[in-house]
């Protein structure tokens, strides 16, 4: 029973990170109809920026803020310079461009920061809370992860619901032509959207790095998991992305915790889940549009 609770909590914590990453993919997909395969290496880049700051003596929180800010700048620049020319074009071209970006950034990280494994600190302990005699498997770090993702999501909801900028962003995601006629600077909104998505992506990168080792390709599996989570949710729905992330996190945690030598099977089970979902409901579990062929 203890073990089950432990595995479940691990799954929920991981699922929150997948959800944040999936949310970043969904934000970009809604505004530009592009799946950003470079999201993982962009997040890895900001994580390495944070790591070098921490190694230089800065506190975790300063590094976190700088990393998120540089994520925003990176996302905005990428949209303006690289994505803009292929926006609205053939979907294959956009896919190939983001893949190119993925390889290029990952290689650049290895060139600049080296490709060895480096440990990344976490601001809170990884020992479970103690209630009386028993230690429950909920650690301060997992609380921090869950809290950080929840706060980010609340901020995003507030932005989209209650501010003029959020309204303009929703308008330009809904219909570029109409938004432009009504005086919304659609180009700027797309850049802002990519920047925000990169911030959320960077956050998930920093959270998954906490307490473990980082190397240039450490986000490779998170891209897959984030993508699968987003697909489970239907790519179009932020709520779907979060639910998808949690479902995937739990499923993978159970595979890893209960199957013999399950940790080697995690990625392949993500593939099986992905194929299963796509075969049963090609639009994802939360798809609202019925006409779109996935």
């Amino acid at each position, binding site marked *: 029973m203890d073990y089950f609770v432990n595995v479940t909590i691990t799954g929920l914590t991981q699922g929150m990170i997948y959800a944040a990453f999936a949310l970043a993919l969904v934000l970009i997909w809604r505004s530009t*109809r592009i799946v950003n395969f470079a999201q993982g290496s962009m997040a890895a880049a900001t994580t390495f920026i944070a790591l070098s700051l921490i190694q230089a003596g800065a506190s975790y929180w300063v590094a976190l803020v700088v990393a998120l800010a540089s994520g925003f700048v990176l996302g905005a620049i990428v949209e303006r310079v690289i994505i803009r020319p292929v926006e609205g074009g*053939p*979907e*294959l*071209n956009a896919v*190939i461009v983001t893949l190119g*970006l993925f390889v290029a950034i990952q*290689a650049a990280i290895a060139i600049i920061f080296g490709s060895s494994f480096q440990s990344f600190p976490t601001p809170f302990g990884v020992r479970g809370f103690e209630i009386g005699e028993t230690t429950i498997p909920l650690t301060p770090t997992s609380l921090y992860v869950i809290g950080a993702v929840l706060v980010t999501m609340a901020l995003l909801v507030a932005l989209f619901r209650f501010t003029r900028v959020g309204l303009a962003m929703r308008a330009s995601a809904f219909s570029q032509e109409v938004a432009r006629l009504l005086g919304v600077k659609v180009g700027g909104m797309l850049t802002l959207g990519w920047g925000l998505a990169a911030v959320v992506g960077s956050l998930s990168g920093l959270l998954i790095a906490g307490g473990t080792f980082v190397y240039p390709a450490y986000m490779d599996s998170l891209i897959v998991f984030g*993508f699968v989570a987003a697909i489970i949710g239907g790519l179009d729905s932020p709520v779907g992305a979060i639910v998808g992330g949690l479902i995937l996190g739990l499923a993978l945690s159970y595979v890893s915790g209960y199957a013999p030598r399950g940790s080697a099977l995690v990625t392949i089970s993500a593939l099986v889940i992905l194929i299963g979902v796509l075969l049963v409901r090609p639009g994802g579990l939360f798809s609202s549009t019925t006409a779109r062929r*996935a």
Partner: protein
Amino acid sequence: MSDLQSSPSAAGKATDEAPVVATAGANASSAQASAERSFLPQSTLLRHLLVLLGSAVLAVALLELSTPYQNSQLATLTYYAIAAGGLTVLTGMNGQISLGHGALMAAGAYTTALLLDADEPLPLPVVLLASVLVAVAIGALVGVAAARLHGPYLAGATLALAVGLPGLAIYFHDIFGGEQGMRVRAPQAPEAFESFIDVVSGNNASSTKWLAYLGTICLLITYFFLANLVRSRIGRTWRAVRDQEVAAELAGINLGAWRVLAFVVSAAAAGLAGAVLALVVRLAAPSGFTLVLSLSLLTAIVLGGLGSLVGALLGSALLVFLPPFARDMGASFGLDQTEAAQVAPFVYGVVLIVVMIFVPAGFVGTIRLRRMNAKAKKAMAQAAADAAGRR
């Protein structure tokens, strides 16, 4: 492209435009080509046989005039080119992207390693055929799922395949050797090969040379097969499925079945490439089939021009000859060895971006577009002159 209501039509428009530029390399019309170059025979099969013969002679000359090191580079080129050829048929001809070809190559490589590990290994052609069949089986499985997907969905699903499948080699480490991988016992060159080399050039018939020849033979057979396939009814159907889903379906084409077929053919090439890789590298290990391998193949076909076999060959040459060059360049900038090794993937990524933004048709496709434009202009000038003359 963002509006939920209008996005289906916008997506439709995008797919209308897609093949015209990005896959121009796939669209050479063989009838016109043969009418223009009258020294080649009219029959596609005969023409391809002639090209095959010419390429074989050229390949022998190239292999005999180059150093042993260059021989091993050419052996590397052959397996990249075989896999890229399969991928370019899938992506350029049928419009399906696959990031999972590295995993399919792994299937071929591990099959070869396992079969050659036996006490009395099967003859080499049987081993190669078995590798192809295993890759075909996996390709068919993935293809059935892939046939229902498009664009980013397909890319993501095959990405999961590329990242996930090597994990199986670690899970079943009793059979596949885990992280260490499996050593591959490369078979001896037959007597006939040694006497052939003796007659042709008198060079030393080393095992490196034998593997380079083996790869070249596989490459030529694969490309001959693929070239005939894309010029046939099958190739035309694939292009119809790629360009106009609705029109193709109205014409009685079963979209799903043809997509699966394209994936299977492509997987067969990847399986053969994996088998040749295992023989040349003499190792089948998970670290050899990373995501970067799949993305390098994509770089090769995008650079050469989607859908063009010549383009795939040229792109593969880049994959072989660029890394040493890039490593030296990196070293001259004061990078250490592991850092300098990353310069090549960095260049691949930049090439993918730059080519897709500025010359989406790639190398061969751009040349074909130029030639078609020139021809169209000439025809228009001719028509204008005719009209003026009549008046």
